């Protein structure tokens, strides 16, 4: 750096800084968000305006109140702020861009085509149904196959009619989709399969849920786990004080209709010290819970009915020194129109130990369709939780069993070991450190 540069540089830097600050000042004039945020932080509790009661335009500080009132905020915070600043903007579908409007026309024409096709197919189904079984070519079996394939095609067309509609896509992404309609279920399933389904399948295989608890499990519904309002990732280790109370499940079904569901929570890692093995313990059973694609919330603590709750929640605890406990949560679908006899479940599984999901499945004719899990280890709160719920074993610690070498004991070697006998009495004060037995501080070998 030349002399004049070295003189000029600090000056130039100051000038630059000033210009940046000026720019910032100018920007803060224009933007609404930073100004509003600053105002909110200065005055902690402001009165909510009517815009703050609308989920489309609510500000971050009023989100909680709105959620408590049962309305979820829509879209991103950035979008909500943008909508506030420009309330009279055109709706999305009326945006005045020629190419956009032309594209919309093409999509609308395609939809018309699909709807016409659906009408045609429905008429065809009616015609096939009108034909008597014996009159149908190929017999009743062929008729049933034909009807099934036609219905499947209609379902496909229903999705194809709406799949290109940007408004439908936007409504789904805002969480406003009606899960009674096939297109929103289609989008939800696609989203689930893109990540969560893969994750849960991986957890099933890597935690050996499949051979250990049941021989086969293919999840077909999205099950999310929440403890104390916080989402828990599948397989996460949960503090015992957090998992003391039952979790809330968020279940999203992807096929239409209401059905009855059984929830079972199993711990396959209960240590059995006498037999040097593990056994399974059932932590929760509830049956006859109605579920449909539209109602997703399933709080286990709210299930109290006499014909629903069979075994109340037993906190997930792991004894000190035991390997982590896998807490597997299964959702099992009951046969349509069939109810599980809860009194019988209570009687059979009064002792929760040595539980077998496989036998439960065959006894009550249920089929697993949803899965999630968490893990539990010994932590500083476990002893208190065990005491509160009267669970034994808080004062017992499991230590790794020593496996002794197959080789016999080795004769002690070395100068000092050789001079232990009475012959070397005069050397005893020097022969204290024997490898494996003692060191300078004294005798180390445990008796």
């Amino acid at each position, binding site marked *: 750096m030349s002399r004049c540069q070295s003189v000029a540089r600090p000056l130039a830097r100051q000038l630059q800084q000033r210009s940046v600050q000026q720019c910032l000042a100018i920007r803060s004039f224009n933007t609404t968000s930073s100004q509003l945020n600053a105002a909110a932080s200065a005055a902690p509790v402001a009165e909510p305006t009517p815009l703050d009661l609308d989920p489309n335009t609510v500000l971050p500080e009023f989100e909680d109140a709105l959620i408590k009132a049962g309305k979820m905020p829509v879209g991103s915070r950035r979008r909500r702020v943008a909508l506030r600043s420009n309330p009279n903007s055109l709706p999305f579908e009326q945006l005045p861009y020629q190419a956009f409007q032309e594209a919309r026309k093409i999509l609308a024409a395609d939809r018309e085509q699909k709807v016409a096709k659906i009408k045609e197919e429905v008429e065809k189904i009616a015609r096939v149904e009108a034909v008597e079984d014996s009159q149908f070519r190929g017999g009743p079996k062929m008729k049933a196959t034909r009807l099934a394939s036609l219905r499947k095609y209609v379902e496909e067309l229903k999705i194809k009619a709406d799949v290109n509609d940007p408004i439908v896509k936007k409504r789904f992404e805002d969480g406003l989709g009606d899960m009674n309609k096939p297109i929103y279920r289609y989008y939800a399933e696609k989203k689930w399969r893109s990540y969560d389904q893969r994750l849960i399948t991986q957890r099933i295989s890597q935690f*050996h849920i*499949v*051979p*250990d608890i049941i*021989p*086969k499990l293919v999840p077909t519904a999205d099950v999310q786990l929440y403890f104390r309002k916080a989402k828990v990732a599948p397989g996460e280790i949960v503090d015992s004080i957090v998992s003391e109370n039952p979790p809330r499940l968020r279940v999203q079904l992807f096929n239409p209709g209401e059905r009855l569901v059984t929830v079972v929570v199993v711990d396959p890692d209960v*240590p*059995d*010290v006498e037999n*040097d*093995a*593990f056994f399974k313990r059932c932590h929760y059973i509830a049956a006859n819970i109605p579920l449909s694609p539209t109602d997703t919330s399933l709080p286990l603590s709210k299930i109290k009915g006499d014909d629903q709750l069979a075994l109340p929640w037993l906190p997930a605890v792991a004894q*000190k*020194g*035991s390997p982590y406990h896998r807490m597997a949560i299964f959702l099992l679908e009951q046969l349509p129109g069939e109810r599980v006899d809860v009194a019988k479940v209570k009687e059979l599984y009064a002792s929760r130990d040595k539980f077998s999901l496989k036998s439960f499945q065959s006894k009550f004719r249920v089929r697993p369709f949803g899965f999630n899990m968490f893990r539990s280890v010994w932590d500083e709160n476990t002893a208190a939780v065990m005491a509160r719920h009267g669970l034994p074993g808080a*004062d*017992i*610690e*499991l*230590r*790794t*069993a020593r*496996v*002794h*070498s*197959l080789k016999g004991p080795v004769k002690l070697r070395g100068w000092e070991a050789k001079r232990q006998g009475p012959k070397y009495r005069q050397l005893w004060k020097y022969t204290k450190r024997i490898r494996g037995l003692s060191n300078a501080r004294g005798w180390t070998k445990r008796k």
Partner: protein
Amino acid sequence: MRSLIAQRPIMAALSGLSRVCINRTAPIGAQLANSLVQGQRYASVKSQGAYKKKSKRGIPKKLGAKRTGDQYVIPGNIIYKQRGTLWWPGENCIMGRDFTIHAMATGYVKYYRDPARHPDRKYIGVTFEKDDVLPYPAHAERKRKLGRTAHQIRPEVAQPEISPSGIPFQITRVEKGEPDRLLRLRKDYSYREDNWRIGRLVQTTGLKIKRFRTRKQYFRHRRWRREREIEGQRKAAQRREELGDDAVKVVKQLSKKALKKAKKAGRK
């Protein structure tokens, strides 16, 4: 001279060459080629057996099976030593860094194949029962052992806070911008931090000492880098092919010195 020739076959060949040179009857070039091709050695050399001597035996690597089928093993026992993966670790076994197969449970060694897992790998496993057959059926529950014993937890004995001399057993040094340090009273009445706590201070600095945390990570990185290089070379070759031979202008990397030299030559 003789002994030297005996020890070194090449020297012997050279000496053969020198003799050929003395013989003037045949053309020198042909003689040279003959002696090189045929590897002439004379009786005096052969009688010493220099070229027949085999190299000395190397150090034995002692590879192979250390435990046979159905033999009893305990955790950590070496079952098989090998170069590469002749055998793979199966049930209750792990493979060490040098492909050695170790037992991870007490039980009986089984050598087996598992076509469901891999069509042509051979596995070594350890079963808890001698009669068990590996592989286990695919959908059967895993066989596991707890391998732990129960002991009473000893209640913690409360330590007094003040030593008999009236000073505390431990004090906390709080310094701004630094993690709190726990200093404990020593036998010589000085306060000093525990050595293991000093060791943990490194973690608070956020320093990254090694680029790779584990050896395995490094090898994986090396493997991936190699794959990337091969991929890049393949793509470059493809591009060259597309452009044709004439389009490619090979720019040879030259050192600074060579560049300077070339410049100088050009100027002349």
